[in-house]
């Protein structure tokens, strides 16, 4: 019979193993921190602005009006669109909902996946901001920016409805919009906006 003999690792090998594992964890954790920082860095804009006189967008006078500004190809906005779908589903008929897409030269916005996604949401109207004037009028600079107005055109919310770039799930922005649409009040009227820039920087 051949008895097995366990060979204990040498102290030097153990030290190298510990150093390798520590270095590996440091590199991976550092990369995760960079990734998280990128994803949690909000975009620009989002100041609260009452309904601008120059806007040609249709505003509801009998209920809230909710507008989301979107870049047609921004992958982060897919999460915002999903959050919008959920919000609309939970507050059916309480707001007129518009999704305003930035027009890009040479691109058919209506063929983009995000346009089709928005068009599929019941009660949502998708529009094209051909010259970017609507976004400028509402001080919207980041895709996924949501603004909510009461029937008098007063801004009651301005911000994003995701917790990070392209990150779905419960988040403060969605909760505040939901609270405003259902209770008429919210803890805060703003939240960070996560998404691509609507215009060239």
């Amino acid at each position: 019979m051949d008895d097995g003999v366990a060979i204990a690792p040498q102290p030097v090998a153990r030290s190298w193993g510990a150093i390798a594992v520590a270095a590996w964890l440091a590199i991976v954790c550092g990369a995760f921190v960079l990734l998280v920082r990128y994803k949690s860095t909000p975009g620009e804009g989002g100041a609260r602005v009452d309904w601008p006189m120059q806007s040609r967008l249709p505003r509801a006078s009998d209920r809230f009006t909710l507008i989301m500004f979107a870049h047609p190809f921004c992958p982060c906005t897919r999460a915002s669109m999903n959050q919008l779908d959920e919000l609309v589903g939970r507050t059916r008929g309480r707001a007129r909902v518009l999704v305003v897409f930035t027009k890009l030269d040479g691109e058919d916005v209506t063929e983009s996946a995000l346009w089709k996604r928005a068009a599929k949401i019941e009660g949502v109207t998708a529009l094209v901001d051909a010259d970017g004037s609507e976004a400028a009028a509402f001080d919207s600079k980041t895709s996924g920016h949501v603004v909510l107005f009461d029937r008098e055109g007063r801004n009651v919310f301005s911000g994003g409805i995701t917790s990070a770039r392209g990150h779905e799930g419960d988040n403060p922005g969605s909760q505040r919009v939901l609270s405003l649409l259902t209770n008429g009040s919210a803890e805060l009227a703003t939240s960070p906006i996560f998404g691509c820039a609507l215009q060239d920087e």
Partner: protein
Amino acid sequence: MTAATTETAVDPKVQRRAEALFDGYRDDLARRTDRFFAALLLGEWIFAIVLAVVYSPYAWAGKTRTLHVHVYAAVLLGGAINALPLLLAWRKPGAPLTRHVIAAGQMLWSALLIHLSGGRIETHFHVFGSLAFVAFYRDWKVIVSATVVVAGDHFIRGVLWPESVYGIVNPEWWRFLEHAFWVVFEDTFLVLACVAMVNEMHQRAEQQAEVEALSEREKQKSVDLDEALTKLKRSQETLVRTEKLAAVGQLAASVGHELRNPLFAIRNANTFITKKVGGDGADPKVAQFLQLIERELGACTKIISDLLDFARERAPNARPCPLRALVDEAVGLVPPANVKIVNAVSDELPVPCIDKDQFRQVLINLVQNAVEAMPEGGGEVTVAAEGGADRPFRISIVDNGPGMPADVVEKVFEPLFTTKTKGTGLGLAIVSNMIKGHGGAIRVESELGRGSRFEIELPNG
């Protein structure tokens, strides 16, 4: 009420073998699982890259697009996560460190895939699936390592970026524990399963060791039986041979007895004729032939005498007999040759009790054999003895002749075995029988080119 307990003593050898088998099983399992995870980690890396490229290929700023951070994360961070686990799976398969690092890597993949999939709740099931995969190692410590990574990820992100984990900005400090609880919930069953499976491996190893030990014992029995059968077969052959020899011996004795008297008469007649016609003035041819007849008759007498000595074993009539004088007497009866015979037996040697006639015959045979074995250039034969008092006698006959090969030494005391052209092959067999009759033993050592040494051991008294 008393309880009787039966304790089975475990053979330490079987126990050691069971431990070795268990270590072997565990090592095989760890290496196999390392390979499985190496393939899984590579698959996850490829999947992550495809997911990033398809799901979020570019980040946009108006009309300008750049490669999305998710693509970089999938390629670089995914590669970094896989680097050490794959290196260890390749270089140190089966090592404890390898499986702990692989488990940590697998759980880090959960975190990365959750990021790349946009935090989809479905992707969180990757955490629970990975824990189940990690349990393939059947090592509960590895599950603990994996859980520490999950808890650590939740804790750190909960501090730096709480919305990504809990969906709210200011969660309670213990919220990471709540998430970890569900992981621990699964861990509980996985750890119990691991412990149970390790116990089963122990039992399997013990059973295997017992079966091997049993098989080895049976094999040894079979070997012993084969040896016994071989010995029995040899004994049977020896018996048959002995019976044949006994029959031949009887016949030879009978023939020898019948021939001895006629031969004696012929010898007497030849002596008479030699005296009458072989004297001076006789035809030289006649004298030569008469000498030839006398010589050959002597040889015949010797053969018949040997046959009778061998066939009719006589119990020794032991009496005190000084050995040195007996050696001198025997040496005197050995036909002269160009060989120096030295009687080195001391006068002060205690007197042994032996059958003088038989022992004289023994000495003659041994010394004559030694003399005849010498080359023509001559040599030396020495007869020595020691012992007596409280010790057995040892009588040695040593020559510096050519020696004997090993196959001859083996058979030298067998009846009818001879290397001489005119030998009967009975001389040393008779010697052996006579020594045995005295309760003694004889052995021989020989080396080619160095000579031979016969040693007789006789009990004292």
